[in-house]
């Protein structure tokens, strides 16, 4: 698979990771759906995706470059998720998977 495809996968994974991190917090979960989040599971899912995203970065680039892409992706994804929660929180509803 080529570099662009791996980077896209890394980006999507990072967006998923940040969304689950956000959903693991009660206040954001409430913006998206009702009930309470199973915080621990969501957070673990988030970390899992962060790691997978890192692996995808490593597939695309030399390790030293991959680290930078990974860190910058996390910043960008966190900002995007923050904005989605503010403007269109319901977009995250499909990801609100694990209720407490």
């Amino acid at each position, binding site marked *: 698979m080529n570099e*662009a495809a791996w*980077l896209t996968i890394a980006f999507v994974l990072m967006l998923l990771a*940040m969304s689950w*991190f*956000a959903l693991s*917090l009660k*206040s*954001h979960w409430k913006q998206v759906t009702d009930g309470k989040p199973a915080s621990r599971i969501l957070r673990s899912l988030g970390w899992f995706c962060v790691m997978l995203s890192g692996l995808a970065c490593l597939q695309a*680039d*030399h390790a*030293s*470059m991959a680290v*930078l*892409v990974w*860190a*910058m*992706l*996390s*910043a*960008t994804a*966190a*900002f995007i*998720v*923050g*904005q989605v*929660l*503010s403007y269109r929180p319901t977009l995250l509803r499909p990801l609100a998977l694990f209720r407490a």
Partner: protein
Amino acid sequence: MQFNSTRQGMAWLHTWLGLILGFVLMVCFFFGALSVFDREIDRWAIPETRFDPQPMPSFDNLLMGVFERIEPDEAEYNRMMPKYHDASAGEMTPRLELPADEYWAYTTHRDPVLRMGAGFRVPFPADTEGHNHIHGNTTIDPRTGASVPDHHLKIGSEWFYPLHYSLNINWNFLGFFIVGIAGFFMLVALISGVWIHRKIFRELFTFRRHKSKQRSILDMHNMTGVVALPFHFFFAFTGLIIFVAFYYMPVTNTMLEPLHSAQQEIEAQEMGLPHKRAGVTAPMASVDAMVAEAKRRWAARDMAGEVGFLQMHHVGDQNAYVSIYRAGSDRVALVGEGIHFNGVTGEVLREDPPHSLAEAIGDFLAGLHLQHFEHWFLRWLYVIGGLLGCACIATGFMFFVEKRKQQHAKAGSQGSRVVDAFAVTTVTGMVIAAIAMLTANRFIPAATEGKGEIEKIVFWSVWALSFLHAAWRSAPVALAKSNPAWKEQTMLIALLGVVAVIANWISTGDHLIKTIFTDPYWAVAGVDLSLLAGSLIALLTVKKMSAMNETQSKQEAGQEEIATGETAYE
């Protein structure tokens, strides 16, 4: 100053350092973000150079002829020659008769043009141990060897780029020091910011834009600061590292000078490269053959690559040697894998050994900031990081004003009014100055003498005008209202962005349909699209500001009604 808690002390530090140095940091972040695409902005500003990046051309057939044509810079000659020359030893050599001692050429994977330069030696130097070089530089089209006119300013790499680390104030390196201090206190502001932010993880994704203006501004400030915290930290930190030994703490030229000189001599001996000219003229061997050999050796090390930097020392002398460095487009760390050749025999004198761990960490840190690598996606992520930094600083200013303007209005203080006017100047004014410079570049005919100088004047005067405008319109802030200059200048950004793109189309024929579809040239298309994106964002912001002002005035009218109603009741 007495504080009840560390947190309060940190808040004080963050507020005041952030305010004072924020104005400088805003320039660093914004023009730093533009510098990610400095070469592309150069292409936009100098249409004659809109062609594809070229590898290093043949030295023997093309570069040698260009090197021989380079003249020592007149201003540098007038300034430095009297200092270097020993009047008791002989006549001062006229400028055009200075003999060349050093040649260099530099290119990257993003450069269609090639930068070259020569260092000329002074025949009767006052300090025989010194370097004593008078320089001359040129930029050529590597396909033909023709020079790119000197009076065309490379707005990206020679204006926006140095602006972000020197503010283009070169007098006694003043700008470098101001930026250095700001960079250092950026680190302090980051640490104190994290300290005072109680819920750093719990509120990482929080932007309550429907709450009060002050709340939503603070949310945005926190979010843009925290999500890109590693970026902010590493760019301030590596920026300092890059310059610390040259400008900020040059101990090797002051306190440790003797040690430094001794070390240099040992290193030179170890390297086996001649430190001085032999004084015996000799013909130069084929440099193209050396380049071929260097490429062969890199390929043998499994790191095949192009030449990025090439330097010939002691030109025309028996001790001449040629250093050839690899273009580091495939890695972060800045390592040239230099190979050095005897200039007369063409034999390899030395291959640079791999760097030690400490050196490798340094290479990586400098490399991640200077980004010589070829990675368009990461470049854009860097732009996003830089713009998040700008948003963080801008919202910091706004929060400062929002928090205080009611109090100041009651007390009759002008404090927030002054800060707000400066904020307008550094946020919208800076963007206007940059776009105005690009627009002027497309309106001033290419043949105009001193074109680049005029563009610089446009840049500074537009920026100064934006300040005057912000100051002139600032009165409402003292009454706890908002300065209309914010909206007016944002409208101007929206307008100028479109004007710049149209001006580019009319003056060069390069419109977006051509640069994206029919004859793709992404450097120019990218600048055009960024300008249009900037316009669009500015337009949306204006709309948002209008809506906010409306609700605000409605609220105020409502409050007045209640107030008048109450008085009527009494």
